[in-house]
């Protein structure tokens, strides 16, 4: 079981929403547990958010980031959506410089991040049941 900090700004809320989707899923927990890395995600036009994987916790920061960041990821909102909705393959995105990554050499970290984040994001996007009606039954 992974605990994920509640987001309070647009981007963090989004990241939290995505990551929470799998927080009870075995594979996800195995990936994240004790990964202990810091990833800086920036959506161009918005602002960077630091995602801190700390033992069984995921936390976020939107300012005074840590000195040591393991991975920096930068992309535009359209790339973000294209990746989520499977219109763009991450490798191509990197080659086309649509997905800019600092720390490319740490292949291990990168692949793990992709498994943790991109894969989850696609799952959220493609989940058919994951719609408002299911979600807010009580309010309809």
């Amino acid at each position, binding site marked *: 079981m992974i605990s994920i900090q*509640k987001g*309070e*700004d*647009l981007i963090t*809320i*989004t990241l939290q*929403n*995505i990551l929470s989707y799998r927080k009870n899923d075995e594979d996800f927990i195995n990936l994240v547990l004790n990964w202990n890395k810091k990833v800086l995600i920036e959506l161009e*036009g*918005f*602002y960077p958010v630091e995602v801190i994987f700390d033992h069984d916790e995921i936390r976020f920061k*939107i300012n005074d980031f840590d000195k040591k960041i393991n991975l920096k990821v930068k992309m535009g*909102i*359209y790339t*973000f*959506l294209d990746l*989520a*909705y499977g219109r763009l393959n991450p490798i191509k995105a990197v080659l086309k410089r649509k997905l800019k990554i600092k720390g490319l050499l740490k292949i291990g970290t990168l692949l793990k991040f992709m498994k943790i984040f991109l894969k989850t*994001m696609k799952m*959220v*996007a493609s989940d058919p049941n*994951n*719609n*408002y*009606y299911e*979600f*807010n039954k009580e*309010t*309809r």
Partner: protein
Amino acid sequence: MTETKDRNIYKKISKEDVLKKLTEIFEEKNVTNKSGDLYPYSYDMTECEPHMPDFIVIPENTLQLIELVKFCNSNLIPIVPYISGNNVGGLTIPENGGILVNFGKKMNKILHVDDNMMYALLEPGVTFGQLKKYLDENYPHLRYSYPFAPPYAGVVGNVLLSGMNNLSCKIGSMGDSINGLEVITADGEIARIGSCFYGKDEAPPDSWWCRYPMPDLMGVFINWQGMTGLVTKCAVQLWFNPPIKKTYLAIVFGLTDVAQVMREVGRTDIIDDISAVSIEVIKMAVELPIPTKFSGEPDFASMFSISAKTKNQFNAKEEILFNEVENLNKQGKNVILVNADEFVKLFNLRVRCYLDLPSVVLPLVEYSGLTWFGSYAPSHKLEELIEKVNKLFNKHNITPFIYMKMMKSGHYAIFRPIMRYNKFKEGEEERYHMLLEEITDVCIDLGCIPYKTPAWMTEKMRKKINPGWINLFEKIKKCMDPNNIFNPGRWNT
């Protein structure tokens, strides 16, 4: 805030005799005077002064109501129409007591849907949820337009009070989409207004298709908040329901940039509905206790809903929208346009409560208090409105919730600051009301015209309205309701 001047309404007849008459008209089970039953009708979510009604009656036909009106008119007893009490303006608080007529319970039938001429003939109690369900099941190719309100809110009330809906950018004020009314006037006479006006007694259900071209008597009942008579039937226009629908989300940086974005996109005349909300409103939907805007976050999010009959028509409209946004960015605006469905799914599905109307915005209604300044606004003043109102919110350090719309292809706009608060927290209501009054003054000075107006607001307006209008208003009110029995107190009557 204006004190409601209490008047003794039982000079001519005793309360007991009134009760006797009411039970005679409506039967015992449809009449009550027990304070336990009356209490919920004595207030709404706003800060407007509560006041107990003396009786609640549940009518089921016009004959009962004719009898009631005649009785009340000869005994000077107030009549207050009520559907579901969801208005945000104290509109059904019986300021002088009297009889509250609850249409919601029994007079809530969908009498006819005209497939060809696209209208629905409704009793006053019909709700949005009910109408939507009925159309989806029986006339999927037709649609009504839905407001930013709960599904259990009333259709007819919203229409008669020029409410908003999610086709506003296409069709404008609901006042323009009423085809006909059946009303009971003070003398207990029943009149059918609109194209349904032929026929001595009943009108055929297929005759409720237009408001014009005969002398427009309907105006006498539109936006009058029940002050001129009791509406017992209302025909509203429906629209063809196009197969293709998509909503775009424009994320706008810069406090006032959203104004020009709405104006320009509104004029393109390709959008069904344009609404814009402060970023805080979006975050509220995610159920953050006190949503605040962080630097780097955009100031407003604007929703554009597009519909089309064919793929080509949709693409053509999409192209026009893209070009428009591109132009705006060329002019130095900072607008990011994304597919709302895609974005919201990743962001947080709760935000769909702004896309799938009617809907309950839990974080908005879960508070004990809710109030607003809802107004029609001159679109060239939006920048100034946003800036000044934003300042006021900050001054009182209350989270700014601003909701705007572009109406009828850009012919006018809607400006609507909203506030939720805790009624029972000491001093809270006063604090919010002070802000609301300041906002009201600023907006009215800039030419905003509030709708669904509480009495304290109409009093401010009366000071600004030209005397000729006031005279005419009083003249018609007196002509229609000489004894002031119809929802007295509204517009300070």
